[in-house]
């Protein structure tokens, strides 16, 4: 018998029992939908984590005083860095693409009737180079402006929108913490940072100006180091740590009083966590798919018993065992494939609804759809074979007598 005919027969048998067929495939529908939805949403979550991390800049090391993010327990406050540290890093560590010293402060910016509380970041032009953060308009600091600590600033888009509204801020003067400052550049919008902070809510000024007018000392509170792509970040990190221990006179065995924060490492950790969670949920969903397969086997076995007489008729009028086997097998496969298709459709709807609610991008993954569908078809083969085998082995005389 031709395969096409068998498929026709299978469709007829399925359509004859619509409700039963639907209930049979429900397990597959839910299983496939669950797997595909979880993987798609998981991929979206991973992508959004990666995106927010990469907005910190790729291969960036941040050198801060103290251990971890806090400034340490009750002991003396670890000293900040000094400008010579920055020069030393730039000159002595191999694999460094750019180094930028930072001195941070905060204050309220005032322009005409508007005021806006923001972060003041004192740094150098290499800060933008290190983070590969482009300007939307205007220009960077000139070396002589940095050297002299002139009162010029580059502002982020959040500050621009809140302080200047529709006006073009370039060349305008605004006041911050009692000093006046001229806008020379506007940064391109970056969006949320890895910790949910708004990176665009910032005013960047030459570090010498911030030190002189705001912090009152020459301390550098943070150093940003961009690692050349050709070098291993970890190697650069360890030579950096070695040098800093030496420069800060830390005795062997004593703990560091500074820390190096690797954005790539954070990115890997967060991505790894999301991926692992996705895998766990997918595995659970996969189990439900397996249970769905067992459901199909169950119903097919019942179906074989219920249709014993039909099988007897088919055998009597000249069906050979392999044709009966094929018929039941194809029926199981068609059932599970239909279930798979419905599951994919359901997953499409579910992800399209859930992705915006969860705030993750909706990434349609062809691969997982193909895999889930192939898996549902395979379930049809595996769990359909046993009932089909049983049907084919029936004795026509007994089958015809079956009530």
């Amino acid at each position, binding site marked *: 018998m031709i395969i096409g005919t068998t498929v026709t027969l299978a469709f007829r048998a399925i359509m004859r029992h619509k409700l039963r067929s639907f209930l049979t495939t429900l397990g597959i529908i839910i299983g496939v939908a669950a797997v595909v939805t979880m993987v798609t949403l998981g991929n979206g979550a991973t992508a959004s984590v990666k995106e927010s991390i990469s907005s910190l800049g790729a291969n960036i090391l941040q050198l801060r005083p103290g251990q971890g993010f806090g400034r340490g327990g009750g002991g003396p406050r670890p000293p900040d860095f000094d400008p010579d540290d920055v020069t030393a890093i730039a000159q002595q560590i191999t694999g460094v693409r750019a180094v930028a010293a930072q001195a941070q402060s905060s204050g309220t910016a005032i322009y005409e009737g508007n005021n806006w509380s923001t972060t003041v970041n004192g740094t150098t032009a290499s800060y933008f180079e290190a983070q590969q953060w482009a300007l939307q308009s205007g220009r960077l600091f000139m070396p002589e402006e940095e050297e002299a600590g002139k009162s010029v600033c580059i502002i982020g888009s959040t500050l621009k929108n809140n302080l200047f509204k529709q006006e073009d801020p370039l060349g305008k003067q605004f006041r911050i913490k009692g000093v006046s400052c001229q806008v020379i550049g506007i940064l391109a919008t970056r969006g949320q940072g890895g910790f949910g902070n708004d990176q665009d809510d910032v005013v960047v000024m030459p570090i010498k100006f911030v030190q002189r007018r705001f912090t009152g000392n020459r301390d550098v509170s943070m150093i940003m180091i961009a690692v050349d792509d050709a070098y291993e970040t970890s190697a650069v990190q360890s030579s950096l740590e070695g040098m800093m221990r030496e420069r800060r006179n830390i005795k062997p065995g004593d703990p560091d009083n500074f820390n190096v924060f690797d954005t790539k490492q954070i990115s890997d950790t967060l991505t790894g966590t999301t991926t692992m969670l996705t895998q766990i949920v997918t595995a659970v969903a996969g189990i439900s798919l397996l249970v769905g397969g067992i459901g199909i086997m169950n119903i097919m076995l019942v179906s074989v018993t219920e249709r014993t007489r039909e099988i007897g*008729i088919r055998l*009597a*009028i000249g069906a050979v065992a392999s044709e009966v086997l094929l018929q039941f097998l194809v029926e199981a496969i068609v059932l599970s494939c239909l279930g798979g298709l419905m599951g994919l459709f359901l997953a499409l709807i579910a992800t399209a609804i859930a992705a915006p609610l969860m705030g993750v991008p909706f990434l349609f993954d062809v691969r997982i759809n193909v895999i889930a569908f192939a898996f549902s078809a395979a379930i049809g083969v595996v769990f359909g074979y046993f009932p089909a085998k049983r049907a084919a082995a029936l004795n026509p005389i007994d089958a015809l007598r079956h009530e």
Partner: protein
Amino acid sequence: MLNDPIITMRGVTKVYGEGPTAFQALKGVDLEIERGDFVAVMGPSGSGKSTTMNILGCLDVPSAGEFLFHGHHVERLDRDQRALLRRKYLGFVFQGFNLLSRTTALENVELPLLYRGDERKARQEAGLAALDKVGLKPWWDHTPAELSGGQQQRVAIARAIVTQPDLLLADEPTGNLDSERSIEIMELLTDLNQNSGITVLMVTHEPDMAAFARTIIHFRDGVVESIEKGARA
């Protein structure tokens, strides 16, 4: 037409079970059925007539002895070879009709052609022709539940003859019908026998039905008791 046996049985025995519980259903049956004959098989329950029919229908094999059908030694064929023999030369009509439920008359009749591998169009044409022969062409799209018992049996007969078999085996075809429908069915079988050249072999309990046959074979205790010429011989 005579002396051209379509079926030859020589010393056929059939034993069910083994050891002390073994039951000998057939104790040496010798039988010859001519091509074109209309045979009624009679006998009380347990006389071996059903077992004989199963063997004649190539559904079962003898425990010993020879069974030649169409020149094939059926006792030497395996399951699938016998299925192919059934597909090609045999038509079955059962007491309980045995139609597929929730399936139209035409689809039921087409079923044997599906296994023969006929194309869709050829199947439909042959199926409708067979339904026409039993007078049910207008009912082709009705399911068994929508047909009367007599009509269902006609559909079953259409299914049996759609492949143009040499031999039609009917197991108490009128057992579930009233006498009026029974006579209609018997007339249909007689017509098929006389005008389509199909050899008919029918098991029946009712002498009235056996009277339609040309040859009547009586079974008793696993052997052929007697063979007589029927009223129409």
